[in-house]
């Protein structure tokens, strides 16, 4: 029985660019305002000029004016030696006029930016996007069907990233999902007239005469169809997988034949997995991307280190086209990824200042939870409060008089496999002074090992916070309540699990903040864990006025996933091992958390990590080249650059992301 869903995607096989108009017409779309075409310009596999020109002609015919074509220069392009969008467009054959004589502007979408018109929950909140893209009446994205070593394939979503500058610390998949959600294209086109296939068709072109086009009103539908044409699971692409999770599967039906294109093939899953593991470190991801294939036509010369890495890596990627040939590539990439994992484990345990902080979206829709769910959080946690109230507190023995209430007492029990615990500290600060400086609502971000996250304060149905009678004995304790939603990331707990591949704890929570005259409390419940790192992470943080100080209490119910390497160990059967490990892990975490609260009160720096990699910073290989040059000079070599030694003049003419030429002066 034919589907009654509206048509969302058309796949044209065996045709040429002339098929574009009829395909668009079948989608029934109509436009008549300013149009921006965001096209894949990345070398060496940009979109074909005839497709873009046909599209521009169609837009003009539909009444769109002006029509602009462009993209944003990202680190991918800069790292491969390309310094301008205009130059990339020219190399792609986009010169501002179609063969039919229709003119269009070639634009760098990254030049004029505005604050992203997105909700606070978005990873783009507080970031900037292309003004042209945001303001366009008609937004069109044109990708090209290419395979990708890390993502399996790339099409429209990868191209859509050109609508905004790269966001430091954010996963491009989150950025793509939010662009798709809040600034989506009206039309998505995949140029598969000559798909580029192989282990990494985007960087090592292997064009096939595929004669296909995909046209859709939904970029996700277009990419899904492209994945089918290339014979890849659509979720092999992290961009698509994340968007599917955030937005759901595309609605509407796809018309046309989705069988795999003849000759289409991509990287072996093992090689892809190794590449993905390596690319989890953004600096290495850039090197991998820049060192595969090339040098591109017209690109600036690479630094000597990059040239060397390229000379070693590219043959491996080329060889991976063979069914068994992927093994050397997998081994090399896996080896580097293992080294990366080792450095991450070291940083997690011993050098937390070098861990990159993260930028993430909220990760869920808080509107899906009615107000009653938020307001009922204290009642939800009440049974655990009662359980904990009946347990003894563990404090150091033999404390002098007056000091027993300064210890970080801990009590805990296991419930359904989860640890239900309470830790507390009397903080030597007046309650009013303390809560004036330490916001309990931000309590999650003040905890130990906090890597980053997002907190969104939700408007009440009546338009703000509610004020109600609280649990004061007299009933006169006015309490303000604020609902908020939060996603937070912590280092793996305990930290040593990082050495066994433990992932950061990543949890999404609904929260209720209550503030009374003598107590402030944050209560939270985990609603999801995007990376499956936690089954339970519920709890409360309370600041209470005591005679002269402030008592901070954390209660919680936690059950975190163990890394695969630990899956075979049944810790529950070994309480002699589990209990001290558990107590030590909690003691460390919450001692540091309380220390953080005190540091926040005193205005001292306490957070771990460093700002994430700036996408405009030089490629890792450039830094290595400078280091090698300095070492060589230090060893007494004449002050000539590594470039000269290798017979390459790259460094002498190295130009940075801003177009400045760097030269090394005589010393």
């Amino acid at each position, binding site marked *: 029985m034919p589907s009654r869903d509206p048509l969302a995607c058309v796949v044209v096989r065996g045709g040429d660019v002339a098929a574009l108009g009829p395909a668009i017409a079948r989608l029934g779309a109509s436009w008549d305002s300013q149009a921006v075409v965001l096209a894949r310009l990345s070398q060496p596999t940009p979109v074909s000029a005839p497709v873009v020109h046909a599209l521009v002609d169609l837009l003009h015919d539909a009444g769109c004016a002006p029509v602009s074509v462009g993209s944003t220069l990202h680190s991918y392009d800069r790292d491969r030696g390309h310094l301008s969008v205009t130059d990339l467009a020219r190399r792609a054959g986009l010169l501002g006029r179609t063969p039919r004589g229709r003119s269009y502007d070639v634009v760098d979408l990254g030049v*004029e930016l505005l604050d992203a018109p997105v909700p606070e929950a978005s990873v783009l909140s*507080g970031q900037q996007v292309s003004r042209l893209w945001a303001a366009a009446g008609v937004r069109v994205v044109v990708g090209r069907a290419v395979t990708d070593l890390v993502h399996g394939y790339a099409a429209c979503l990868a191209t859509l990233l050109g609508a905004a500058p790269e966001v430091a610390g954010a996963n491009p998949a989150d950025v793509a999902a939010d662009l798709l959600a809040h600034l989506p294209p009206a039309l998505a086109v995949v140029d598969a007239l000559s798909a580029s296939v192989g282990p990494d068709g985007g960087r090592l072109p292997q064009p096939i005469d595929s004669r296909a086009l995909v046209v859709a009103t939904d970029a996700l539908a277009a990419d899904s169809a492209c994945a089918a044409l290339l014979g890849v699971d659509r979720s092999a692409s992290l961009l698509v997988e994340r968007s599917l999770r955030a937005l759901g599967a595309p609605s509407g039906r796809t018309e046309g034949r989705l069988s795999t294109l003849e000759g289409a093939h991509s990287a072996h899953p093992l090689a892809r997995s190794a590449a993905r593991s390596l690319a989890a470190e953004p600096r290495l991801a850039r090197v991998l991307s820049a060192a595969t294939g090339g040098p591109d036509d017209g690109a600036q010369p690479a630094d000597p280190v990059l040239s060397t890495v390229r000379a070693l890596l590219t043959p491996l990627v080329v060889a991976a086209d063979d069914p068994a040939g992927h093994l050397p590539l997998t081994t090399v990439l896996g080896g580097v990824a293992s080294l990366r994992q080792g450095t991450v484990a070291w940083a997690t345990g011993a050098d937390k200042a070098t861990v990159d902080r993260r930028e993430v979206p909220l990760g869920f829709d808080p509107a899906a939870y009615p107000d009653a769910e938020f307001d009922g959080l204290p009642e939800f946690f009440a049974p655990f409060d009662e359980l904990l109230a009946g347990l003894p507190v563990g404090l150091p023995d033999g404390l002098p008089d007056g000091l027993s209430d300064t210890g970080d007492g801990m009590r805990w029990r296991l419930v359904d496999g989860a640890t239900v615990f309470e830790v507390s500290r009397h903080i030597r600060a007046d309650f009013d002074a303390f809560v004036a400086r330490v*916001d309990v609502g931000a309590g999650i971000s003040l905890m130990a090992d906090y890597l980053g996250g997002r907190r969104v304060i939700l408007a009440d149905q009546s338009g703000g916070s509610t004020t109600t009678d609280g649990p004061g004995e007299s009933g006169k304790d006015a309490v303000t309540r604020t609902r908020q939603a939060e996603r937070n990331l912590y280092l793996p707990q305990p930290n040593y699990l990082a050495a066994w591949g433990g992932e950061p704890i990543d949890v999404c929570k609904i929260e209720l903040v209550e503030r009374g005259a003598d107590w402030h409390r944050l209560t939270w419940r985990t609603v999801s864990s995007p990376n499956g790192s936690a089954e339970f992470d519920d709890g409360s943080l309370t600041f209470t006025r005591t005679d002269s100080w402030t008592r901070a209490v954390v209660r919680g119910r936690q059950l975190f996933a163990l890394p695969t390497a630990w899956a075979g160990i049944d810790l529950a059967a070994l309480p002699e091992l589990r209990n001290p490990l558990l107590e030590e892990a909690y003691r460390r975490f919450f001692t540091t958390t309380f220390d953080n609260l005190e540091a926040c*009160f005193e205005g001292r720096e306490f957070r771990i990590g460093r700002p994430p990699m700036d996408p405009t910073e030089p490629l890792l290989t450039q830094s290595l080249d400078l280091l090698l040059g300095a070492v060589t000079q230090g060893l007494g070599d004449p002050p000539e650059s590594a470039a000269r030694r290798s017979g390459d003049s790259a460094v002498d003419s190295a130009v940075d992301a801003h177009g400045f030429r760097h030269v090394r002066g005589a010393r």
Partner: protein
Amino acid sequence: MKIAVTGATGMVGGQVVSAALAAGHEVVAIARPDPERRGNTLRVGGHDVPRAAAALTDTASLTRALRGCDGLIHCAAVYAFGAARAAEVDQVNTDGTRAVIEAAAAAEVSRVVVTTSSVTCGSSLLPRARSEDDHLGVEPAPAYYASKVAQEEVALETGQRHGIPVVLALPTVVLGGPFIRLAPSNAIVLRYLLDPTRSTFAGGCNVVDARDVGAGHIALLEHGSPGERYLLGGEDLSWRMLHSLVADLAGLPGPFAEMPAASAWALSAAAEWWAGLSDSTPLTTREEASTVGRFYWYTSARAHDLGYAARPARAAVAASLAWLAVSPDLPRWAREGLRLHPEVRAARDLVGAPLAAADDLSPRPRRSPPAWPRRRR
């Protein structure tokens, strides 16, 4: 009494200021000129005190700064070991002291207390407490020790020459805070926290809490006899006893083996070599290691007669740990491994940060500054 204090940004000077204020005195902090520091006050121990800028080598500026003061407590000094800073130590501790006392005399200050060190009383191979009647002998003595002996001579000679009463304060190993730069005294505690072998040494020292030393200086200014030396100490401890206290209060094991002096010297050499490579300050030096095996034990009976009192060594160590725990000198990995005793948490009062705008309350992690060449219309 209006009291001028040099070195008020240091650990001892800061505690002197706090003690002076607590005793009801008016205080002026003499600080070296600092173009980055604005305003005429200095924040010391939660108090804003008037600040006068003057370099220790600038007698004219010092005289102007001291004009109108009744007393002067000269705490400014360089407290460091190692050949790299030997010249600086000598210049600041002796020439600086001479200039300060001359300026005090010119400004008609009526009494001066100069902070020297207990090391000028020397040390023993046997566990015997020394007094003000003892002097540094022929034992191994770092340049810092010699500079302190010279400082005492210069202080007394200059005071006598200008007819200004000078009292010498000889603190022992001062532990606690607050401090901006890690001094060798607190570094003793820090070294144990960072020592994976949890080892100890032969010999011992006398430790005193910085707060007691601050109060002791005020007692000397008020009641000390001119030309006299007063030891300001606390408890005499062997290194093993001191390290045991650190271990107990920090929740660490040990101490275990007692390392010979040669090992300490070798480790110090390695520390200096690494510091040279990394362009940092060594946590210990060969000069300092040369004192291992001796007893730096002292009696403060003379100061006790003036009302001076010191709290137990355990409290001094707790204060040191409390300040180290919030100091960048203690790496995060080491701090997270501590299980600080409640006495440590009680040893330091929390001081609330100045209230900021509401937007800055518990701010989110800072984003990296935009490096993108952005242009807004």
